[in-house]
């Protein structure tokens, strides 16, 4: 605060000093003005020709230099800047369009790769399935043939056993007839009878 006060004080003194000087000057020139007849210097027509002449001279000089050199140069610079900026904007637009293209290409490639991959997976899967199926079916057929051959063998054994049973039955029947009735029976005849009987039974079953 005190600093500002000192500054203000100093300023006031300076103004005061200048004021005295100006006052003296004004007084001196005021008197001179009165001696010349006073009035506004603007309406002292003696000076008009000179003023108009010099204004026209400077106007022509400025007009010539402005219109021939300065203004075209500035306009040129502004034009250059405009085209420079426009060029950059256009380049940026082209680059962004390119980037977009690349992006769509990338997406396309990714999609294609995905498709291809899934196709390949499908292929491998199908192959595996087919191999699996083949292995299974060959196993099954082997298995089935084994079963059927085993069944055949079982049936044959069964048949053999049955025919043995028939001969045993005929033998037993002959022996029974001899022991019980004392009839001598022909074993081959007895076998025929037993066979026909067992055939009948088998048919009935």
């Amino acid at each position, binding site marked *: 605060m005190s600093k500002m006060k000192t500054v203000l004080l100093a300023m006031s003194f300076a103004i*005061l000093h200048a004021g005295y000087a100006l006052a003296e000057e004004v007084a001196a020139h005021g008197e001179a003005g009165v001696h010349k007849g006073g009035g506004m210097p603007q309406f002292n027509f003696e000076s008009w020709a000179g*003023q108009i002449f010099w204004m026209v001279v400077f106007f022509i000089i400025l007009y010539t230099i402005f219109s021939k050199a300065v203004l075209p140069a500035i306009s040129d610079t502004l034009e250059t800047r405009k085209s420079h900026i426009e060029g950059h904007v256009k380049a940026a637009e082209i680059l962004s369009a390119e980037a977009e293209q690349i992006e769509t290409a990338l997406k396309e490639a990714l999609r294609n790769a995905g498709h291809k991959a899934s196709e390949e997976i499908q292929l491998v899967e199908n192959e595996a399935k087919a191999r699996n199926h083949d292995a299974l079916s060959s196993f099954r057929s082997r298995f089935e043939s084994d079963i059927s051959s085993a069944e055949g063998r079982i049936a044959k054994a069964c048949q053999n056993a049955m025919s043995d049973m028939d001969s045993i039955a005929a033998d037993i029947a002959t022996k029974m007839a001899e022991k019980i009735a004392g009839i001598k029976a022909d074993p081959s005849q007895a076998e025929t009878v037993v066979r026909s009987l067992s055939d009948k039974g088998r048919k009935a079953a």
Partner: protein
Amino acid sequence: MHQFQISPIIPIEVGGWDISFTNSSLWMLIGAVLSLVLLGVAASRKSIVPGRIQLLGEEIYGFVEDLITDNIGHKGREYFPLVFTMFMIIIMGGMLGMLPYSFTYTSHLAVTGALAFLVFFTVLMVGIARHGTHFLHLFIPPGVPGWLLPLVVLIEIVSFISRPITLSVRLFANMVAGHVLMKVVAGFGIMFATMGGLGWLGSLLPVIFNVAIIGFEFFIAFIQAYVFAVLTCIYLKDTVEIAH
């Protein structure tokens, strides 16, 4: 009125005409050199990213360009150097006039009158050369009833002729009034200061007031250059197209 006094520096007389190089001519020269240096430097830089001076030059260029396109249209480009020179001369006059001990050459009716009549005769001659007798339609506004026409035409002619007078007197009077006001207020300060004793305290008020006026005067120097340029554009528009 000492600040408006014209005093010769190099006396010249041609054919009975006193065309001495005066303090007024000196400040015209300073203004012309200053604007040429400023704009010359601004124009020669040609940088894509402008510096301070180049930017200032380009701002002035853009300002006048907008003024012309707003008031005349794109056909007004042919008047660009004219309006630009007018604007530079007047703003330089006003701004340099704010320097202590300088001379405000736009505070003289001879100078503002010369500039105003330059505009007036440009409009008149280009208008007649381009439009011929059709230029006279300028004085006949459309949609005026016949019985009123003589009066309206008279008013239009008077207003057309008074254009250079109003244009020159406006600028001259503004410059004179501002400078006289500054001097009067400064005179109050001196009056208080010479009273002796604590009288110098009373001089503070006019000093503060003058500081505000000086700021305002810079603004007026710009506004008057702007107004002169705008009115020049509006008057020049009549040579480009007549509204009816």
